[in-house]
């Protein structure tokens, strides 16, 4: 039973992706570009050489973390569209912690590790708190979370920008960036020479996905959340307080988004900056999570796929004339198809691929 649905899910993801890529290629061809080159460049940009792989994995790290954050909430039946904002706030908290504590702590590797750990913890706290906010508004004021979280994304971005520009910008510069973190606050690249990807970051993402999976599948807390998502009335019957669960869910989701923020600040940037120039990981994560049927483990392959699409898209941007926005559109198409499993079921039935007639 379960196996069949995992398989079906996987097939759905593959078919959606292929179909979206096919449509993308047709559009490329129809607008007068070379479709074959489009696809091969996409592949090469994703996995063609070591630095491309590093970029793919870097994007995947971020997408897995934010994807898990989305999955947690969706699983519990709460539409957290605010992962972007929670991730922005989390990363900002990391940056503040590192910048303010660095002078107080000894430098060197030990200081670096301490700063990174503390920075990640504050990110988790900040992300969780920023996630709790719409949770509280939904639970106790019936405010639709889809709308509140979208508003809070705009607000997070605006306020963080303001704070950086007004208070954290080093004198003598005009860019709304904070100072760079000390050199020793950095995750080692190991096999990948890239300055913005570290196997440790990927490890954190994988461990988070696994950890969240265990929580969701093996603990009574996870059971409470998932049951609320499936059937709120049954959850209430079983002793789950629906209001509290909305708040805990959003907090938990925000905490994971906070980890994403920490990794972004430490591993990717090494400083902090105007959030409106950040990639929209929090939104792409919705696609990632959906593709994975909101399963934290499924988020890993989905995150790798989207990371690859991202990297490939960027590569296309600087090798071909095809505008890289196209790749964003293709991602949207994937989401659209994933949203409509019935479409594929019906066509599968039409072509006689199993399924009962009703």
């Amino acid at each position: 039973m379960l196996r069949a649905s995992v398989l079906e899910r996987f097939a759905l993801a593959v078919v959606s992706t292929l179909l979206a890529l096919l449509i993308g290629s047709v559009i490329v061809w129809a607008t007068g570009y070379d479709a074959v080159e489009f696809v091969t460049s996409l592949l090469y940009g994703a996995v063609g050489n070591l630095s491309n792989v590093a970029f793919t994995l870097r994007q995947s790290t971020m997408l897995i973390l934010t994807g898990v954050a989305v999955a947690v909430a969706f699983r519990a039946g709460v539409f957290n569209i605010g992962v972007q904002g929670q991730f922005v706030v989390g990363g900002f908290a990391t940056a503040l912690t590192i910048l303010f504590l660095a002078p107080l702590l000894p430098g060197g590797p030990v200081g670096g590790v301490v700063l990174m750990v503390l920075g990640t913890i504050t990110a988790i706290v900040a992300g969780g708190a920023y996630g709790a906010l719409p949770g509280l508004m939904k639970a106790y004021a019936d405010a639709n979370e889809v709308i509140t979280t979208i508003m809070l994304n705009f607000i997070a971005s605006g306020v963080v920008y303001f704070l950086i520009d007004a208070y954290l910008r080093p004198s003598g510069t005009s860019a709304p960036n904070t100072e760079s973190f000390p050199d020793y606050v950095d995750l080692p690249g190991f096999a990948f020479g890239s300055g913005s990807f570290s196997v440790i970051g990927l490890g954190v993402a994988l461990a988070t996905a696994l950890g969240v999976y265990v929580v969701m599948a093996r603990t009574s807390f996870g059971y409470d959340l998932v049951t609320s998502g499936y059937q709120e009335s049954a959850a209430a019957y079983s002793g789950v307080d629906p209001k509290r669960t909305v708040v805990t869910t959003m907090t938990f989701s925000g905490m994971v988004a906070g980890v994403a923020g920490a990794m972004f600040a430490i591993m990717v940037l090494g400083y902090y900056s105007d959030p409106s120039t950040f990639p929209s990981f929090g939104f792409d994560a919705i696609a990632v999570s959906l593709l994975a049927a909101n399963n934290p483990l499924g988020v890993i392959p989905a995150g790798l796929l989207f990371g690859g699409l991202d990297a490939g898209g960027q590569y296309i941007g600087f090798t071909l004339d095809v505008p890289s926005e196209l790749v964003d559109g293709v991602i949207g198409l994937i989401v659209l198809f994933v949203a409509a499993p019935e479409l594929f079921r019906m066509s599968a039935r039409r072509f006689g691929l199993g399924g009962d007639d009703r």
Partner: protein
Amino acid sequence: LTGDGGDGDTETDTTDGGEGGTTNIAIVSSSAGFGDRAFNDLALEGLENAAEEYDIELQQVEETNQSNYGTVQSRLAESQNPDYDLIVLVGYQHTQALETNAEEYSDQRWMLINDHIERPNVGGYIWANHEMSFQAGVLAGTMTTRELTHEGNSNDPDGTTVGFVGGVDGALINAFERAYVAGVEWVNKDVDVRVGYIGNYEDTQTAANIASSQYDAGADIVYQAAAAAGQGVFQAAQEANRFAIGVDADQSVTLPDYQDVIIGSAIKRINEGTYRVAEGIVQDNWDEVSGRNVLGLDQDAVAVVLGQAIGSKLPDAVSQNLEESKQAIVDGDVTVPCTAAGCQD
């Protein structure tokens, strides 16, 4: 897929790019992206002009996420096919990433627009936004009390109010604002400057609304520093039958539909800068074009040019004041608030 040479061979022939072979140049946009009708497009234009003159292969890379600049830079620097002789980076958002990459890829030559890093392989080019904005202020301050009519548009010589519409309220655009205000006041202490910020660089409607609000409040000339959104200001000017000042390029030329309201534009000749550096690469004159280059009124790299349609109608006082204030700035008699890089406080 491995036909592209793999990653083993990273030796770069840095002396390449003489008069002989094709010169490869990549340009990476700022987070505003190309199509901003402002400095991204201008930087590109200079390279395109160079490409018409010389044997240059140009690769245009649009990347609007600041967090990706590190990777984009390194991916381009590592590229073997082609091997870029110069990578042009538009905007200060590239600076932090370039600090690492300029060191890492010490054989790669970089041109950074609007900022600089002390490295032999970097040419940093900063245009004095504050000086040109001061000049724009002089233009506005001079004209607000003078009679001007053009195709049904007119100013209000009795009123002493002008406006400023900025993109994002931050150090960079604050420098435009303060310098502009200083320029206005240099002409006439009594002139009142209305200021508004859009909050981004793409919302033309809000830009138009801010400008309209300022025209309503008596402004007869509005200076915009809002990249793509700035068009909204010209539109508002047409609606109010007032005037406006363009930015970055001569917008009475680049946006001819608005030439009836653009009395002048504060321009920075970024195109000349990128052209010069491209030429330097082709002619193997890196030393002459690298290093820190602050380009201001003194170098004629920034200026206020008068609108192509209206310019001839402006009174002589305008060019006199512009010339006089320019001289004063160049001579150091007038200190323009803020710096080329922005306002610090």
